């Protein structure tokens, strides 16, 4: 089997070490083709078809396989993801290069490879006796790899020819030199553009071609200074002349940005087009500091509006910038200019096409939804279709002589303003993986119909005789927890929390597990759920449905009547839930004294104990925080929201919550005991005192003192604040307090000192998540750890790999945050939909007083918005801001935090991408500023004004589609397949 042995040497940075590794070459690697009769056959690895199933190409007459060069994968991954391209050979050299260059593309490529329908075969050329080549003296690694790719192509052609197969293997490369050399060696080679253009029905693919070489635009004046070469950058950073950091564009102004340097608190300010020098948000760049006399400061917020209305006219904006520069001479910050890009962080962006009046033009400007991203120039022949849609675009390059970066069209999401489209946009913008579960993932699911077998029962405790029930919000399909409580002979109570045993179905290392780890959490939008697990698990096999036998992981305590834990036991078990109730139903059962069956009794006991537990917890210093949460009543037909209301809480909510907290804490203690280095925990860092400043000031203005030295004192002072005339005062204070907090995060216990495990909000020294494995991956990890602790399951190497688990935690934290943002965005979207057709007056309270605005909270809708003051320069109504006690004064009206106001809410739809709610003051009445209370007439007027822009766009697009609608529609249809 083993043939030769070659030595590799490797040097690492700094010290030069010689590393010698063995490299075995083999003669038993299959070429992967069905047509091949020479390779030793192994059925599972034959991927490439022998028939002519590749797409017809006018350039290649015979049946062919494609062998793809690295640059194609890196640049054209969007096209490779299209189903038409199949029968592709990826050599290992290429795969490794891709992995080194871009982990994102690598992941996407792996996805394509793992789909058997696509027929992508990985050929391990580096270990094949005949295709392995050694680097020649003087040859660069790159050249060597190019040669290796050519050798592999040649080998394929010779190899398949031996059997008289007609199949040719074509090298697909955009590297001109590689192509030239290939042609010299008589290897068939073709460039991506030629190949795509030669395909039948290629129109929709052409748009997706990466515009790396966009010759036509490359003429004309140069807008930007040159970037330095990598070696210059390297030297500059080494000598300290240049600073390396992550560029963050300003949300308000695309001509400004900051450079965040690792380990340095103060960021460097960058302003102006040529100073930004083609840096895009998120890029790692090198910056040179400007001399001090050229320093400037961020311009004011006002620019935002002007920029929005007139983005294109850069000169004008520039002038405004200058104007603000002169006015703000006093507060100058460190300013620099970008001299080079170290690593691009380009991804795909979501947005719309800018309207263009020239018919038949293929070059268009794309406006991203995110304000931080510059406009992108793309080429498309489908303008008529795309101008009404939200689309996704990727950036390819940004030459010096192009004002905007060049990109290509990736795909269309759907019509602007359509709810599914907007949901899609939310998901994309928050980087939430939401595609359908792949077949590989689904194949690792248990086969239906599923029944409990004896094998499942082994090692489980049979708890089917217990009166177990679950309590959840209405409409909940993924029930992951159930409870029971019963009297013990010794007078104590036995309480059990039973959590769905997801790890029983989701074995480590399977495709299902990997997918779940990637998703990390279920995302809840107002009208849509993106599950972490496939439906079969999340709403059937793992969901603890009523009167169904389900596998669970139980945590069982013995408690005395004062809710002191006597002992704790964990076990895998099997249960049969007696009832799946909603919070309301459970509450009714508890309150109804006539009901006396065991289930109700156990509910009452649970409720009784939970109150004790809660009291203990609060006495300990746990915080009760509030955030405005709202619920939409959605029309079941159109899925448009009809009514908005704030969420209500009942006693049973807190009952379930208490026991879940208790279970989480018990489990956390246990897994840390067993795995002091590897336990997955959750901590909530104590916020620095400075964070509380707004809270302290706001309370002080109302005559209360806040003690923020510890969580306990804060909780106590929050409890004391009540105002007779303002029933919402306490809630608003709590909302403010919540804003001061830090984010809770997952971490691996070995990475921190035990004193840092503390959970500030819950005031407990250790905490983890155990109770919702259906919707959180952290819980899955905890389940696995706990299962090993109690000997119910086997370990596997990755379980105890600190680094990998740390990476998983990072991912979970990131996904969790994004899921929260997405949920908020979804609420905002629905609020907008709700206000689309109406203008309403609502009672609200001032939450913050800002320099030029009031932050208003409308409790009825849990809605927060900004009421801008001093907006109109020509108006004679002026507000004076007092920074000392946070108040705004106009005439004899004073606005302070927590003051009640009445505002008029309407929706401004003038900007198609960013619809926003407009707040106008109604009460207290200030002449010249306030608006009259809403009535039907003013409503209609405002509506018309607002929708003018939208209508304009619609009309225009309608007109164009009328002209040549037929053709474009047809094209659109084909694209979908």
């Amino acid at each position: 089997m083993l043939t030769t042995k070659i030595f590799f040497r490797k040097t690492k940075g700094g010290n030069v070490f010689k590393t010698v590794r063995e490299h075995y070459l083999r003669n038993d690697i299959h070429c992967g083709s069905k047509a091949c009769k020479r390779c030793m056959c192994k059925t599972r690895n034959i991927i490439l078809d022998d028939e002519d199933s590749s797409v017809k190409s006018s350039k290649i007459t015979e049946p062919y396989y494609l062998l793809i060069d690295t640059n194609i994968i890196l640049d054209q991954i969007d096209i490779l993801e299209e189903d038409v391209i199949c029968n592709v050979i990826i050599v290992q050299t290429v795969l490794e290069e891709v992995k080194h260059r871009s982990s994102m593309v690598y992941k996407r490529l792996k996805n394509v490879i793992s789909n058997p329908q696509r027929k992508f075969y990985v050929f391990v050329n580096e270990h094949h006796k005949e295709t392995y080549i050694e680097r020649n003296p003087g040859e660069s690694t790159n050249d060597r790899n190019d040669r290796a790719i050519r050798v592999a192509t040649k080998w394929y052609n010779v190899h398949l020819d031996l059997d008289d197969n007609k199949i040719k293997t074509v090298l697909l490369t955009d590297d001109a030199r590689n192509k030239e050399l290939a042609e010299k060696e008589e290897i068939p080679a073709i460039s991506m553009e030629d190949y795509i253009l030669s395909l039948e029905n290629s129109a929709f693919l052409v748009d997706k071609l990466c515009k790396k070489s966009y010759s036509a635009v490359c003429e004309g004046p140069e807008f930007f200074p040159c970037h330095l070469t990598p070696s210059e950058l390297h030297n500059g950073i080494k000598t300290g002349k240049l600073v390396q950091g992550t560029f963050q564009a300003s949300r308000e102004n695309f001509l400004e940005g900051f450079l965040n340097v690792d380990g340095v608190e103060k960021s460097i300010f960058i302003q102006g087009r040529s100073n930004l020098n083609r840096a895009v948000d998120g890029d790692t760049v090198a910056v040179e500091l400007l001399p001090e006399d050229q320093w400037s400061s961020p311009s004011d917020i006002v620019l935002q509006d002007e920029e929005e209305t007139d983005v294109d006219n850069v000169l004008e904006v520039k002038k405004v910038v200058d104007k603000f520069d002169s006015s703000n001479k006093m507060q100058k910050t460190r300013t620099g200019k970008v001299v080079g890009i170290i690593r691009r962080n380009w991804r795909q962006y979501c947005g719309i096409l800018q309207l263009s009046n020239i018919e038949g033009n293929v070059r268009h400007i794309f406006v991203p939804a995110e304000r931080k991203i510059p406009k992108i120039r793309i080429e498309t022949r489908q303008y008529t279709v795309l101008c009404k849609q939200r689309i996704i675009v990727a950036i390819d390059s940004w030459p010096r002589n192009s004002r905007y970066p060049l990109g290509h069209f990736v795909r269309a999401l759907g019509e602007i303003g359509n709810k599914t489209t907007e949901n899609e946009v939310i998901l994309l913008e928050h980087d939430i993986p939401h595609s359908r579960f792949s077949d590989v993932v689904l194949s690792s699911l248990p086969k239906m119909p599923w029944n409990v077998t004896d094998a499942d029962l082994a090692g489980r405790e049979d708890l089917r005789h217990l009166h177990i029930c679950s309590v959840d919000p209405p409409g909940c399909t993924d029930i992951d927890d159930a409870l029971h409580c019963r009297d013990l002979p010794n007078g104590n109570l036995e309480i059990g929390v039973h959590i769905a045993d997801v790890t029983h179905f989701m074995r480590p290392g399977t495709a299902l597990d990997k997918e779940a780890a990637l998703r990390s959490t279920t995302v809840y939008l107002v009208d849509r759920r993106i599950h972490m697990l496939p439906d079969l698990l999340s709403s059937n096999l793992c969901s603890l449905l009523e009167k169904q036998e389900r596998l669970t992981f139980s945590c069982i305590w013995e408690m005395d009547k004062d809710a002191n834990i006597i002992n704790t036991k964990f076990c895998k078990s099997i249960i049969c839930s007696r009832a799946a109730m909603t919070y309301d139903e459970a509450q009714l059962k508890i309150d109804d004294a006539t009901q006396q069956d065991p289930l109700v009794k156990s509910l009452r006991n649970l409720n009784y104990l939970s109150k004790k537990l809660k009291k203990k917890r609060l006495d300990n210093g746990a915080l009760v925080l509030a955030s405005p949460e709202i619920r939409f009543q959605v029309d079941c037909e159109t899925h448009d929201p009809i009514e908005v209301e704030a969420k209500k809480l009942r006693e049973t909510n807190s009952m379930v919550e208490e026991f879940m907290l208790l279970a989480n804490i018990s489990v956390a203690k246990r897994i840390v005991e067993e795995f002091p280095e590897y336990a997955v925990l959750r901590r909530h860092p104590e916020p620095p005192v400075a964070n509380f400043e707004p809270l302290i000031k706001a309370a002080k203005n109302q005559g209360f003192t806040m003690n923020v030295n510890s969580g306990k004192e804060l909780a106590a002072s929050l409890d004391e604040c009540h105002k007779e005339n303002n029933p919402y005062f306490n809630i608003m204070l709590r909302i403010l307090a919540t804003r001061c907090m830090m984010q809770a995060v997952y971490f691996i216990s070995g990475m921190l000192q035990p004193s840092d495990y503390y959970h500030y909000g819950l005031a407990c020294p250790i905490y983890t998540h155990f109770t919702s494995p259906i919707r959180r991956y952290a819980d899955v990890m905890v389940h696995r750890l706990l299962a090993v602790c109690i000997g119910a399951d086997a370990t596997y190497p990755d379980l105890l790999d600190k680094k990998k688990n740390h990476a998983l935690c990072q991912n979970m934290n990131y996904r969790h945050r994004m899921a929260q943002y997405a949920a908020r965005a979804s609420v905002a979207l629905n609020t907008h939909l709700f206000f689309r057709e109406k203008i309403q007056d609502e009672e609200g309270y001032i939450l913050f007083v800002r320099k030029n605005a009031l932050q208003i909270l409308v409790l009825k809708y849990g809605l927060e918005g900004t009421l801008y003051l001093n907006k109109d320069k020509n108006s004679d109504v002026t507000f004076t801001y007092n920074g000392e006690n946070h108040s705004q004064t106009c005439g004899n009206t004073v606005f302070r935090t927590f003051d009640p106001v009445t505002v008029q809410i309407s929706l401004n739809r003038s900007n198609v991408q960013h619809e926003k709610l407009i707040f106008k003051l109604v009460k207290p009445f200030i002449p010249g500023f306030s608006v009259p209370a809403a009535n039907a007439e003013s409503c209609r007027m405002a509506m018309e004004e607002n929708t003018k822009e939208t209508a304009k766009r619609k009309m225009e697009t309608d007109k164009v589609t009328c002209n040549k609608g037929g053709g474009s529609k047809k094209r659109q249809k084909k694209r979908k397949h």
Partner: protein
Amino acid sequence: MIEAENIEDQNGLRPDGRRALELRQIRVKMGVFGQADGSAYIEQGNTKILVTVYGPHQPRGSTGRNTSNISKGIVNCQYSMAVFSLSSGERKRKPRGDRKSQERSLQLKHAMEAIIHLEIYPRSQIDIYVEALQVDGSEYCASVNGATLALIDAGIPIKNYAIGCTVTLINNPSLEDEDNTLEKGVLDANYVEECTPGVTLSVVALPNNDSTSKDGLIVVAQGAGQRLHLSQFESLKARVLYGCQDIRSILDHAVREYLTEQSLPSLFHVALN
């Protein structure tokens, strides 16, 4: 550094191009060292070990004085790693005396005591010196193999070959399984594979002559600090014994070849006299 993920990229091949159950190339030289009573040099891939055997001779030094057990011979093992032996390129500070080498010495002693007929050497001592010249994974196992060969070269009667082999549990379901009866784990790990998370089990076995039965486990040394669940142990054991069997036949072949090469002329000479 090549990561374990690479295996996915390579259609089930390990980072150096082997399949799960393949060993590295084993090269053996016996009698490389005239001064010693027996010596052997063994290469398992890039792991290179030199073993010398002195004795049996009169007990010397501290081991000699402590003659509590005079009915049996004493085995004295010393395991040392050359300062230049590490494959990561760093230099080791001391060749021996650290915890790792002491532990290795002790384990080696256990293995050797298990195969030598010590009862025929009362009041005598056998010294086994192991020098690891280059280390690229599985060095303990290679040194056991080398020591066995050196004992043979020294003409000390042994019961069976003591064969060392490592098995590493790499968590990878996609790893190609040639033989489904042997579940998972890769044999004869090199340095890169030993560094991956997962358990590396070093096993010394006395494999039987006939390749059908597999038994005779003696020494187990555990590598990486992870826990191994008992349920996985049996399958790993099956694999590693399969590997030991293979190594045994390679060594056996080498010994026979060496003996025919070396012995024939002298036998001929004796016969002539």
